[in-house]
């Protein structure tokens, strides 16, 4: 018998394949295509305190084996989420994780506090790839110091399992991972998108309305696997790995690099059944390799 459960410290999931924030909306759109209850967890799109319009069009562009997006955190805001989306989600037997973002530490703290009391939310994921308006727009996720301060404050404000999502646009991901761990993160998730841009050579201007965007998809997978590998050596808390996962083999790379669970983003756009396909594929893998649970392969690539 194969055990598919994912053990993420304080967070237990029925299986280790999650949606990546921002690629699955609040689940509604995909609910007609697949059973949400099959998901390891549904990580909803980035939520902010107030509703956000997001960035001007165009917001996406295809790139080699990937895409850039500059959605700009369009979302209906906390209130709407709590009054409309969350109750709707309760109709499904799906573990809900809320991804939150803010411009100030206070934004994050308020979001964490408000969400903390709510039934039906399993964990919080802090998206640190947001410009810190107090610090002149430098991203929260690019310095150990800002991560430390922010995570400590959020930690105090909420009693949910706390996932800190790391940005890959940094010189030393391991250092930032340690900062998050030391300041109270229960789980780390990585990677968010790589910053990139495309220039429209006919208009001779940046293609995206927002000028730059975030690169996701298979193109970034080697970078993501490397970062999971490095972070696994640096911390003792569980990791949710993501970045370009399309196939069971891709997911296995992340587990072997040290992830205890994986998330699927861009691949959902190409094949909406990616997540159920990976769940059953991982199940078959365990069976055919005579393994009893994913735990047996987590971090194997580090052995010598």
């Amino acid at each position, binding site marked *: 018998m194969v055990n598919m459960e994912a053990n993420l410290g304080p967070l237990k999931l029925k299986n280790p394949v999650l949606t990546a924030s*921002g*690629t*699955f*909306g609040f689940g509604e*759109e*995909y609910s007609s*295509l697949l059973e949400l209850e099959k998901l390891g967890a549904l990580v909803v*799109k980035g939520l902010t305190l107030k509703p956000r*319009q*997001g960035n*001007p*069009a*165009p*917001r*996406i*562009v*295809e*790139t*080699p*084996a*990937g*895409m850039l*997006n500059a*959605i700009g955190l*369009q979302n209906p805001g906390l209130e709407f989420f709590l009054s409309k989306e969350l109750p709707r989600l309760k109709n499904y037997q799906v573990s809900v994780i809320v991804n939150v973002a803010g411009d100030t530490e206070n934004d994050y703290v308020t979001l964490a506090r408000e969400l903390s009391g709510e039934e039906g939310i399993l964990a919080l994921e802090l998206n640190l790839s947001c410009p810190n308006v107090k610090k002149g727009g430098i991203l929260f996720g690019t310095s150990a110091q800002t991560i430390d301060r922010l995570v400590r404050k959020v930690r105090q404000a909420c009693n949910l399992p706390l996932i800190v999502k790391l940005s890959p646009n940094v010189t030393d991901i391991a250092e930032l991972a340690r900062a998050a761990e030391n300041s109270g993160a229960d789980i780390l998730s990585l990677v968010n998108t790589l910053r990139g841009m495309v220039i429209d050579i006919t208009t001779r201007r940046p293609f995206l309305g927002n000028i730059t965007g975030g690169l996701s*998809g*298979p193109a970034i997978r080697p970078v993501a696997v490397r970062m999971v590998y490095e972070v696994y050596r640096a911390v003792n808390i569980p990791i949710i790995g993501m970045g370009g996962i*399309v196939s069971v083999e891709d997911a296995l790379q992340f587990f072997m690099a040290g992830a205890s669970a994986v998330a699927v983003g*861009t691949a*959902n*756009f*190409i*094949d*909406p*059944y990616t997540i159920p396909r990976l769940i059953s594929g991982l199940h078959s893998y365990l069976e055919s390799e005579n393994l009893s649970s994913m735990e047996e392969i987590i971090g194997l690539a580090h052995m010598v």
Partner: protein
Amino acid sequence: MLSRARVTEITEITSNHYYLLLEDPQMARESIPGQFLHIRIRESLAPFLRRPFSIAGASPGEGTLKIIFRVAGEGTRILSSVRQGEYLDCLGPLGSGFKPLKGPVFSALVAGGVGVAPLLFLARTLVQEQKKVFLFYGASSLGELIPVRRFLPGEIEIHLATEDGSGGFRGLATALFEEALRNGLKPGEIFACGPRPMLQALAEKNREWDYPMQLSLEERMACGIGACQGCAVKIRKGEETGYRPVCRNGPVFYSHEVVW
């Protein structure tokens, strides 16, 4: 729904436009004019994303759907070499479709380039509803003009334009349409699809004309189902404006809703 639709026919209809006939009974039954299919060109990382194509016709009886596409880049180039009997991974029908008025109004359809595709499907439906339909269709030159007559019922009045004057009226489809208005055409409703500048020009004119006018927009798409907000355009609803996904809230919007 996601389906593997069988290619029953693929034909070159101009030097760079193709006609694709897909077999998929359920999709054929469910499709309405203005909707689109989000097609995976092939099982490969290149091209990476799906490609959206309007449904140019659906025959529930035969269980088939029509697509008309222009070779615009790598994806459509590869699609043009698909062969009869092969299967295409299609997500659809997607989007909200046109909402024709009830009753016996005159319908004017204005199309630029391959934007004519969704209007061909719409035209058939309008004729079935006993409406009088006028199609104003323009392309850059004669060689680019899709032979639309063959996809349309005889009742429809077709007016052709080419920018270089090599066929029909010399100029844009919109100019041809405006001429018809000046000559007394009184449409009860207008439907348009084509390049963004064309739609924008029509929408601006329509602030004065004030016809019920529906536009089918194009935007880059990822998911195609409203989950990623990648294809969002600015839409006005009453006093408020906000971004709405073309793939789900559109691709068809009323002209006064679109913030250009």
